């Protein structure tokens, strides 16, 4: 019986963690361009000259978004 006492919170907690992870992915715009993301994985070129550029671009893409 004691197994249940810790298994239940662990199971629910893991589920909740998944939900939060999804929510984070959603908010950071990773669901905005599923087609493009598949292609970007094959792109060998460095992402951009500085991380700053990438951040700004992501932000722009998030703000004005997809579809």
């Amino acid at each position: 019986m004691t197994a249940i006492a810790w298994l239940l919170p662990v199971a629910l907690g893991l589920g909740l963690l998944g939900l939060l992870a999804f929510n984070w992915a959603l908010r950071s715009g990773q669901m905005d361009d599923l087609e493009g993301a598949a292609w970007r994985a094959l792109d060998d070129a460095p992402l951009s000259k500085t991380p700053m550029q990438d951040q700004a671009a992501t932000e722009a893409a998030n703000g004005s978004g997809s579809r």
Partner: protein
Amino acid sequence: MAEALSIDTAAGHPAKAAPGATTATLAVEGMHCGGCMRKVEQALLKVPDVVAARANLSSRRVAVTLAGPMRSPDALIAALDAVGFKASPLAEETSAKEAGEDRAYLRRLAVAGFAAANIMLLSVSVWSGVGNDMPASLQTLFHWLSAIIAVPAVAYAGQPFFTSARQALAGRRLNMDVPISLGVLLATGMSFYQTMRGSEQVYFDAAVTLLFFLLIGRYLDLTMRRRAAGAAANLLALKATSATVMLDTGATERLATGDVAPGMRLLIAAGERIPVDARVASSGDGLVDESLITGETRPRRVAAGDLLYSGTVSLTGPIEAVAVAREDNTLLAEIARLMQTAEQARGRYVRLADRAAAIYAPAVHGLGLATFLGWMMVGAGWETSLTAAIAVLIITCPCALALAVPAVQVVAVGRLFRQGIIVKSGDALERLADVDTIVLDKTGTLTEGRPRLIDAGAIASDALVLAASLALSSRHPYAQAVVRAAKERGLHVAARAGVAEVAGAGLHAQDDDGEVRLGSASFCGGTDTDNAEATLWLKAGTAKPIAFVFEDALRSDARDVIGHLAAQGQRLELLSGDREGAVAEAAAAVGIATWAAQRRPDEKIKHIEALKAQSRNVLMVGDGLNDAPALAAGTASMSPSSASDISQTTADVVFQGEHLAPIAEALAVAKLAKRRSLQNFALAIGYNIVFVPLAIAGLVTPLVAAIAMSASSIAVTANALRLQLAKTGVRT
């Protein structure tokens, strides 16, 4: 990983990366793969002031961040043009709002999914524990845990259904969301009550799973409509929105098309669209491509005093003209109005799922009520009676029904999308399935819509290169055809310096070897014998002029596709604004017996109305602006992606590429989709026939309800997915 990290930091700080930075969104045509995305991004990063650019392949858009305020998108558009992409600026607000709504749906879907999975985990434990050694107290604990997850999840994830149901009821209508909301709310409410009493009749799992599946169906529907609407917005952005106006001082100014008043002097550059109807004022003559209005491929020669129609393209330029109408008074606007009227008739189409709901909802509610009253009459007490009635509502909750059609349509639309066929809405697919008559336009639909050099083989390579080197500096369709022919032969063409264009005559260049001319017979000293207008001549020095003959070639698979469609039992007609000879010839070449020539837009509508009056379902396929009203009048409509913007916006389906096969493919897939939808309805009804009597009898336990619910949803989805692999017998 660097990208993921930067996303994380960006999400936390909604402020802009640099103070004063602005963003712009551009619609980019022809972006298809990862390579294109990179080209687009890199081209934009080379533009001064551009800090960042991120392409979105799903929406065919690119978001650009600039260091300072954006003065004009022209530099960005030019940069993309240089690498071969046509771009146009988009209004910011709409796309941001769409993205927000999209994410809200996904979040609801995630919450419902989380709740469904975890409650199912608890429920399965309870079911497997019943009859074994599970103590009642533990069972109650599990029910309470389920309740804690289910109640907020239903309250949050169910919102779209509740809102829609409330709106329907307020308007004294019934839609599919009314039985859905009632079923979910009653199931949750009753389960909560039973949990408090420590009973076994707890249906949280059924309620939340139901919601999860329904949200999938709803989300699929939404993304499909969004994709279509986004494509339409991208198209509309391509429309010419400004005009160059000459002021009295002699200076020029760019004005929005809406601000151009009659009497203003306009300057129309080569290749530019004419903003409003205007009368030519310049002394020389020019050529105007009026295929948009008339469907005629040959450019019209205009001289002082001639009327120019808005939306047509000036080929030689610049032309000076005096505006004679406001934007909303032009022939173009008149066509748009005709189109709207025709479209209203189509608005009466009722979607398959809604037709089903109109019968289904009252039947289900009646059944639930009858069950309650029946059990009361046999004296079962109100609690048993209510439990049985709610079980009926849960079982009949149109989960499979609400999933049946969207699932099929998403699979069908996705399949067509990968083949370059864009279907704008789900009901377009339904209407397409009913088509039994196909009316085609000639220019640009049956044909490629641009002239092609037909005797290219007879012309020596060096002559072709010479002609092409002159032709490169002109936007005339014949000149472009010469350049294409040279490139197709693999010849290297370099633009020649010092080429001058003589409006209405041709091009000439003077260099050490003497004068080279490319143009009309009289301009080049050729003989005006065969097909004078459709022939271009090249004269180099004193040599004999060489003739170039053009034709508007039929699409390469036109005959095969027409034959295939005729074999399928479709009635085919050719309806064109072009002159009779050309139409008759094209009709004979592809094997269409019924044709009509020289039809104006309103006559085309009349023809389609007449066909519809014979209770025929007409598919209109056309590309020109002159087809747009007819496209709206048809039961369904298709247009090639080379069509005018208005036609593409009006058409239900837009197909890309050089072939006609997409017409046959889209029809075949639409018919398959309809068959699958009906099969899915049959599955859903069959499942009801089995389980409703059990529910009425009060035999549906939570376990039975959960299994029945999931099984039927999975069955209809699996049936829809089969469409992905089905063969249509069309070679594309």
